[in-house]
């Protein structure tokens, strides 16, 4: 229909215009996809790297377009290395307690001072790394740094504040139980890694109730040490001025601490594929997570896995979403990812599925996983698009001062080469279809997938059984088995 209309329009133009006029006003051929211009040159930010006398690494990258500074101290190792299993939550609690007052300032005074500087100091401790930092205007960089140093080094950890934060944390944990996506992620981790592996542990009511002020004080002393710290400063600064500011601002931060080791216990033995069903009566959707433990970030297969995942579930038009959302309409969006870290992070595929289509969607998930492992071979076109997408997406990682800070810091946290971004395109390009076929088989082990579904058992159970995909085990919100 569309083409007929075009022909007609063209005929009309020809009949009305003489040839000379036509030559001047060539009607636009909208069917032609405009070709791209020449690829822009990749500008990877440069940086200087020095070591302070206290052992911390100092990285400075200049970016002068706007009067902004990003300042971050990143610590190697996180809750998995520094939290006892029975005290899960002490890292996050300590991070929060840094806002509660120092030897010279109350929590209110710190808050007011930061508000007047127009910024905030954020502390966060994840599984394998933590950080404290801020983004400020260039003129407020030094006064904000002074507050950060005071918080990190001179906090007094008032006991009443601990009780208040404990109360808030317990409310948050209760609310999290009502969030099917949170429950899904927690149970999935527990099934894959078990209680003995830090990847399978989480903060619980019991662990939060057991945290004492002494635990917080001890954590602060053990954790925030320059020997494992990378200080990254990006923005409207110079390396010389930053070094002066940082040496002055962190003068009281004396040499201590080592880089942690990342030894993890052995994984529990892989189980034959199984559906783990968590009953959420009345749920409008089923939260589906499918997967198994995968490789660490330093795997030599990293680039092949990135290309593979881009094809399978990293993008909107990846196989999973194109099928389950766009063609079938079972979901608002599904995806897959490899969760890279120092240990065996999970491969996971999933999404929120309309309850009545849970079985049908699971059939499609399995079809796509089998497909990527070999039944539906990866095409040249898919490989080309995935590689282009990865390579040409690189400049977005340098789009802001905080993005640049992350991009540079992650190289040192993950132990990657300093020319990582310069060689990125080459490494992605080098991935072959044979590599993809191999890593798909190796890391997406169809016989040992855990299929975790949080949904309305009454609606989904019979249909799931009928698919015959895997036997069903019933578990509770904590991931513990319940009777049938």
């Amino acid at each position, binding site marked *: 229909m*569309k083409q007929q*209309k075009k022909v007609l329009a063209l005929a009309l133009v020809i009949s009305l215009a003489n040839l000379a006029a036509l030559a001047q006003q060539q009607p*636009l051929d*909208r*069917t032609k*996809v*405009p*070709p*791209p*211009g020449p690829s*822009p040159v*990749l500008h990877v930010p440069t940086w200087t790297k020095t070591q302070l006398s206290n052992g911390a690494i100092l990285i400075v990258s200049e970016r002068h*377009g*706007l*009067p*902004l500074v990003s300042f971050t101290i990143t610590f190697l190792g996180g809750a998995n290395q520094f939290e006892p299993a029975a005290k899960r939550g002490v890292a996050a609690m300590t991070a929060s307690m840094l806002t509660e007052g120092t030897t010279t300032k109350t*929590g*209110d005074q710190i*808050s*007011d001072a930061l*508000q*007047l*500087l*127009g910024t905030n100091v954020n502390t966060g401790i994840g599984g394998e790394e933590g950080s404290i930092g801020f*983004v400020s*205007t260039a*003129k*407020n960089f030094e006064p904000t740094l002074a507050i950060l140093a005071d918080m990190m080094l001179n906090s007094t950890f008032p006991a009443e504040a601990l009780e208040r934060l404990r*109360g*808030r944390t317990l*409310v948050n944990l209760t*609310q999290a139980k*009502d*969030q*099917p996506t949170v429950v899904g992620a927690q149970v999935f981790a527990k099934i894959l890694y078990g209680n003995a592996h830090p990847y399978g542990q989480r903060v619980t009511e019991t662990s939060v109730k057991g945290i004492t002020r002494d635990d917080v004080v001890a954590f602060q002393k053990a954790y925030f040490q320059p020997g494992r710290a990378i200080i990254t400063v990006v923005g409207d600064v110079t390396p010389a001025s930053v070094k002066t500011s940082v040496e002055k601002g962190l003068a009281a931060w004396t040499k201590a601490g080592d880089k942690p080791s990342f030894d993890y216990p052995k994984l529990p033995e892989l189980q034959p594929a199984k559906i783990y069903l968590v009953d959420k009566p*009345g749920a409008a*959707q089923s939260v589906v997570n499918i997967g198994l433990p995968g490789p660490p970030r330093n795997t030599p297969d990293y680039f092949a896995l990135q290309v593979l995942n881009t094809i399978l579930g*990293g*993008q*909107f*038009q990846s196989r999973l*979403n194109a099928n389950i959302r*766009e*063609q079938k*309409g*079972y979901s*608002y969006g599904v*995806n897959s990812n490899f969760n890279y870290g120092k240990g065996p992070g999970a491969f996971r595929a999933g*999404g*929120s599925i*309309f309850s009545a289509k849970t079985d049908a969607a699971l059939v499609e998930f399995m079809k796509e996983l089998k497909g990527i492992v070999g039944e539906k071979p990866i095409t040249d076109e898919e490989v080309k*698009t995935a590689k*282009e*997408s990865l390579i040409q997406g690189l*400049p*977005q990682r*340098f*789009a*802001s*001062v905080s993005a640049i800070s992350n991009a540079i810091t992650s190289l040192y946290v993950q132990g990657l080469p300093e020319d990582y971004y310069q060689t990125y395109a080459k490494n992605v390009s080098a991935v072959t279809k044979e590599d993809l076929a191999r890593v798909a088989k190796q890391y997406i082990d169809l016989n040992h997938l855990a299929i975790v579904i949080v949904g309305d058992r009454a609606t989904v159970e019979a249909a799931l059984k009928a698919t015959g995909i895997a036997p069903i085990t019933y578990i509770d919100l904590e991931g513990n088995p319940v009777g049938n």
Partner: protein
Amino acid sequence: MNNKRRVLSALALVLTISLSQPLLGQKSSASDSIKIPFETYKLPNGLTVILSVDRTTPTVAVNVWYHVGSKNELPGRTGFAHLFEHVMFTGSGHVPYGLHDKLTEGVGGGNNGSTTNDRTNYFETIPSNYLESALWLESDRMGYLLDTLDIAKLNAQRDVVKNERRQSYDNQPYGRVSEIFSAAMYPKTHPYSWPVIGSMTDLSAASEEDVKAFFRLYYAPNNATLAVVGDFDPAQAKAWIQKYFSDLPKGQPVERPNVALGKLESSKRLVYEDRVQVPRLYIQWPTVGFKHDDDYALSVMSSILSGSRTARLTKALVYDSQAASQVFAFQNSAEDVGVFQVTVIPRPEHSLTELEAAVDQVLQKFISEGPTAEELQKAKSGLELNFLRGLESNLGKANQLIDGAVFYGNPGQFRTDYQKTLAVTAADVKRVANQYLTRSRIVLSVVPKGKKDQASKAAESEAVSVLIRGGRS
């Protein structure tokens, strides 16, 4: 990443600076940094164009806003603006399905859209060498979307929207609060009374012709604004814009609905039972939209009431009495209407009735004394940093400029907003507190299933039925 796509903004939290963020003290240096260089012009077919060059990163943002949102819909035919946000990604006259994604995410960029009560936007972020194809894509769906829109495509996206509703509202604890408020705040025929995502019954009932008529009226160049921001050559961009957009026909003039502000004859108390374990208290007062000057003072007031640990409500409820786990206060404004909302999450052993009284006590004191000079200064101190951080993103800049163009006819409106927010005085804040927080209001308690007695003043509260305006598929 996928889940973020085609996100629906439940209420218009539009990106004018005045709305959400606090601001700054040192006026001179601040106003020096508050700038975005741009040029703007109109094509003969009415398309407004804004160009802003920033060569920091070799990427470009292309952003098209249509001045149509859920408020342009009619009762019984709701959800169309948001449905188009989905349909617009499924191909058009010369663009086969999938190519849009291929020329954006497939080349290292991205695309998305969003819908509010007032406007719909569509955008691409791309490596700068893909600017021409992005303009081609946007022009094709502006001019030729209906060429390939059939009932099958429509049905497929209806299913996706229903899943979006399940994910964002129905399967989300407290996910129905905003639509309960919209329905309670405005009369049934009021254009802000239905949720942006619309009624699933209406969506199911919509005919192909209904939907196409909506598109013809609202998605023409004269109702659209295009911004290109980032690393490009302006002369080349203008030539491409001329090439792809200039022959699209002008549409009918769009009539802007004359929308009455929210006004409650008397206060309402509602209770809604949800699949939650922790109850929550919500209070809303009708205020004004973001084009009204009181919006600046109301926004400043929100930062004085919550957000930092010394903010009035936070200090009293979370730190001093510790009856609440968290408290939030904010002015939520759209083009024509606005509301001021307070949300309280209680600690165990503290009832919503107790918390409502505690909120009122803080507000009464504030209404009678107004803010201190220091409170006012703190509330404004973050503005400059927030503005500068917004400039780091091409898309953020594009949104600022278009927002001004669409709602004020002036892409440079961000500067006015900034100055007017800085100019807010303690007397202004005291006046708006008196004027708006003493009005009739809606108190909504969300409680666990079967626990209506946990509502604030339960005996006086009216139950909200689960089905709101056919809101369930």
